[in-house]
């Protein structure tokens, strides 16, 4: 059964159709990558999934329930977690406080905070101020905040942007390890990350789904190649 699905999801910005009637299904436990050229509507699409952007038309269902009318914070409480395209953390607070806010005061918070930071390799910096971290580490902290929510669906908007190659390698390992416990929707430009972590790939182009399939299928898809490289 699908954990998340959309029907006819659309967004118009003053005449520009950023997302056009997208039907999308994400089964439980899958790692799905969402790719597409710049301006394809990826961030708008996930913005509508998690309630940051109101859709012009269409519905979003999560775990069989229509959540189209729910505000973002209610959707998060249903078990979605979202990391921003541009790193968004609490820069003047400690790492501990950042992750503790993500845990939202559930039982065993202390333990959950340490576990999430350990997962991304930042446990030894737990008492540092988040704003003092390097950019790459701030991204990892945001991912730790996502993990700490124990989400059923983790939405990562370009998580490896700005990471060093060594950090990207660790990130791939982390994502693969997550497969057992959660569903992941990954918006990503880095093709090696997409090819090595995703179970399936959805390609958006001009606000529409251009193709969907396994990494190998997408790799061989002529339409996708055209969208990315132009017709020459």
């Amino acid at each position: 059964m699908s954990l998340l699905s959309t029907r006819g999801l659309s967004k118009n910005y003053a005449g520009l159709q950023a997302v056009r009637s997208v039907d999308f299904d994400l089964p439980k436990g899958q790692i799905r990558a969402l790719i597409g050229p710049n301006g394809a509507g990826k961030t708008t699409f996930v913005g509508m999934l998690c309630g940051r952007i109101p859709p012009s038309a269409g519905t979003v269902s999560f775990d069989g329930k229509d959540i189209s009318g729910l505000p973002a914070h209610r959707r998060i409480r249903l078990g979605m977690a979202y990391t921003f395209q541009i790193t968004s953390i609490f820069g003047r607070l400690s790492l501990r406080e950042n992750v503790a806010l993500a845990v939202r005061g559930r039982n065993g918070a202390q333990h959950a905070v340490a576990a999430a930071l350990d997962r991304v390799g930042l446990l030894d910096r737990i008492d540092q101020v988040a704003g003092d971290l390097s950019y790459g580490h701030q991204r990892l902290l945001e991912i730790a905040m996502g993990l700490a929510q124990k989400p059923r669906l983790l939405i990562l908007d370009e998580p490896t942007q700005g990471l060093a190659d060594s950090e990207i390698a660790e990130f791939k390992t982390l994502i693969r390890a997550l497969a057992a416990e959660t569903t992941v929707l990954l918006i990503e430009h880095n093709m090696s990350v997409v090819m090595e972590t995703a179970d399936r790939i959805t390609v958006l182009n001009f606000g529409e789904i251009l193709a969907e399939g396994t990494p190998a299928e997408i790799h061989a898809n002529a339409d996708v190649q055209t969208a990315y490289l132009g017709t020459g």
Partner: protein
Amino acid sequence: MSDTGKSLTLHLGLIAVLFALQFVLPAYQHGNLARIMVLASYAIGYNILFGYTGLLSLGHAMFFAAGMYGMGLSIRYLGFSPAPALIAGIAAGIVLAGGIGALALRTAGVAFMIVTLMFAQAGYLIILYFGAWTRGDEGFVIQQAQRILWGIDLSTPDNRYFAALILFAACLLLSMRLIHRPFGRVLIAIRENEDRAQMLGYDVFRYKLGAVIVSGAISAAAGASYGLLFGYAGASFAAVQYSILPLLWVLLGGAGTLIGPFLGALFTFYLIDIASGFTSAYMLIVGVVLVALTLFARQGIGGELRARIWNWLP
């Protein structure tokens, strides 16, 4: 000593010092300090919203006045004794804050400042409009006989000082407790990054409304106490000046520090007091000092203390 321990020691120490001071201060300073403690309580209320939640209100005089008139009018027309009158004042502040908050929080940033300013002006004009009951600008005196709380005459300097100290200590400890509770931590998170807080599953609007109500309640408690301790309620306390003053105190004392509101109120009070001893153009001196502080101590006195010496200051 842990940071929490140090912070508790500092703030309890301040309360202890204020307690001890009443036995040594000359009458004039004694009266001043009582007034400063009540005004600092008002600033503590303002700081919850401005310093900890990051919402700049330019209309807090309406909450201060709601407390003052909720108390004063219920004594004057309903024959309340001071204790229920105080509660009536605080309740008036809470109801007003709930209503105004629900409306004003639909805006953000500069619009929020303007909307709160306008509501406060409307409140001020309402007090003037109903001058037949409120006595408008002239205000009304709360008689000594009406200011006896549980057999204690609040109009005598010693009792007044002690009552002001209790109010101040209660507000200080309440705000300290608040910012260490999950509710307060979320307010700080909203101040730091509202988008992120919302995308961690917090109902940002509800938390901000909660902050407006707590802030309004503390401001109203200060307003009600002011009227009761100094025996007067008047429309000037609802005017724009009393919306700007707490902002000034908190900015100077250090926004988002617990001790800042007290430091700011103390500093401003004595700055005006001393400057007016030299010249009738004392606002000129006050203005220059304010500009200097804004230029060289941008985080206020408390904020600079935190940045330079006491990095554990909450």
